[in-house]
């Protein structure tokens, strides 16, 4: 049975002049424990779709259900990891991780236990009393992941979480994420515009078209992990998906040129 069902979703942004159709006829079924990447160029609506699942911006028509329940707003059953980390700068690492559990009124002993486990799991032990300003980007994203894991939500939504990190830190965190996913069996919906990242991580890659955002290709990745980015199979898929994404990127670029000409 599918855990997340996206049924005929449309999203229209009303702007002065004309309406922009960001999502059109999106139908997706995501199984429990599946690692799904949404892949596409800027403006393809992948973040819009993720925000719709998160409940931040509901669809204009169609519906999204999680475990049979219609999504009407954000909630701790769908934890979100943002590209900008969005840690609360006035809270220490441990306080950031504990906050979601305090909101849920868990008891103190349980919170302490979970915080300690998560600090351990994400190698943050030495940083528990630091403030986010003192941490590197990679460390901050570890805290953001720990904060979501503390919610114990079955679904993790990730909006280009490693986009701002350098290549080595990025690979490091990708491996970390796979390890956690393996251990905890979460369903992950992961937005990225990196083809390689999507192939390295996902069970399934949903390639989206540029405006209006539609599903262009729903591609299963049939490779055992850990995946070797230099293998022939990896690169065949990379070439194939690269072609698809670049078609859309070209439409995006043409659109921008047109806009520039009008200005």
């Amino acid at each position: 049975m599918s855990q997340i069902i996206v049924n005929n979703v449309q999203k229209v942004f009303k702007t002065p002049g004309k309406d922009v159709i960001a999502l059109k006829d999106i139908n997706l079924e995501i199984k429990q424990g599946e690692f799904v990447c949404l892949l596409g160029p800027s403006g393809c609506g992948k973040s819009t779709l993720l925000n719709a699942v998160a409940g931040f911006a509901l669809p204009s028509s169609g519906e999204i259900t999680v475990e049979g329940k219609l999504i009407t707003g954000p909630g701790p059953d769908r934890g979100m990891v943002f590209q900008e980390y969005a840690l609360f700068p006035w809270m220490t690492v441990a306080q950031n991780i504990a906050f979601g559990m305090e909101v849920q009124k868990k008891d103190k002993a349980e919170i302490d236990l979970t915080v300690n486990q998560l600090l351990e799991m994400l190698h943050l032990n030495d940083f528990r009393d630091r403030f986010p300003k003192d941490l590197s980007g990679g460390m901050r994203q570890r805290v953001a992941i720990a904060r979501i894991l503390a919610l114990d939500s079955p679904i993790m939504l990730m909006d280009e979480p490693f986009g701002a990190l350098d290549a080595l830190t990025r690979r490091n965190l990708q491996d970390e994420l796979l390890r956690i996913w393996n251990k905890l069996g979460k369903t992950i919906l992961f937005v990225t515009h990196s083809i390689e990242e999507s192939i390295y991580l996902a069970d399934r890659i949903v390639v989206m078209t540029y405006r209006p955002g539609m599903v262009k290709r729903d591609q299963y990745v049939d490779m055992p992990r850990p995946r070797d980015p230099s293998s022939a199979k990896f690169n065949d898929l990379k070439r194939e998906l690269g072609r698809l994404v670049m078609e859309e990127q070209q439409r995006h670029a043409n659109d921008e040129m047109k806009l520039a000409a009008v200005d």
Partner: protein
Amino acid sequence: MQKLKDFAYGALVPVLLLILWETGSRLGLFSPVLLPSPTAVAIKWWAYLMPGQAQEAGQSTLAWLLSGELLHDAYSSLYRVIAGFLIGAGLALPFGLLMGASTRIYDLFNPLMQILRPIPPIAYIPLAILWFGLGNPPSFFLIAIGAFFPVLMNTIAGVRQVDGIYLRAARNLGVNQWTMFIRVILPAATPYILAGVRIGIGTAFIVVIVSEMIAVNDGLGFRILEAREFMWSDKIIAGMITIGLLGLAIDTAVSRLNNHLLRWHRGLEH
């Protein structure tokens, strides 16, 4: 060693000025009534600081040492600043949070605030005396008005500039309205609020001196006005210096508090 050098460098201009002033006084260039010499001021300041009477039997030495006029005046002024500030800021903070968070409340009260804000607290003096009579209450009222607006305006601005990403992250974690307000919006707005507090304390300190010139019979503002009646210009200057020192002490304390409360803040090095 470097610290000592920095201190010596910073002291250069004040010390030179003092020497010039003292020399001028000794040469008889200034009338001692209009501008007494620095030594005369220092002697007066010391007399003002030390106890006026000999130690009484049964009085502890500490109580005796603290019984001087200066300490009593400084304490009175400080008490008024703190009480008035707490009233003003205590009203401004919740009000500012509401006005910052709700456009409807903002639109309802903003016109009134914009009319009242430019009226200097000093202009309330006649009303303050009519309403509250003499003694501390009119001072509290005037100081509270002086502190109210800076804290209010900065609190509104602070709430409005809270980055939407924090609100989204908090909603994602499932917070309710109250928790959002207390644990997200309020701390996110503290840098602005504390900037307002600092301005508000500064205003309160100006207003306290003025208010003491009208309705009370102690405090630093009262004392320098009293000294003028007797043409004690050495005591006027001694009082002014005390006001400066107390202002510096208050600002240092607020700045310390700032650094502690904002130790998480990116722009702050300590």
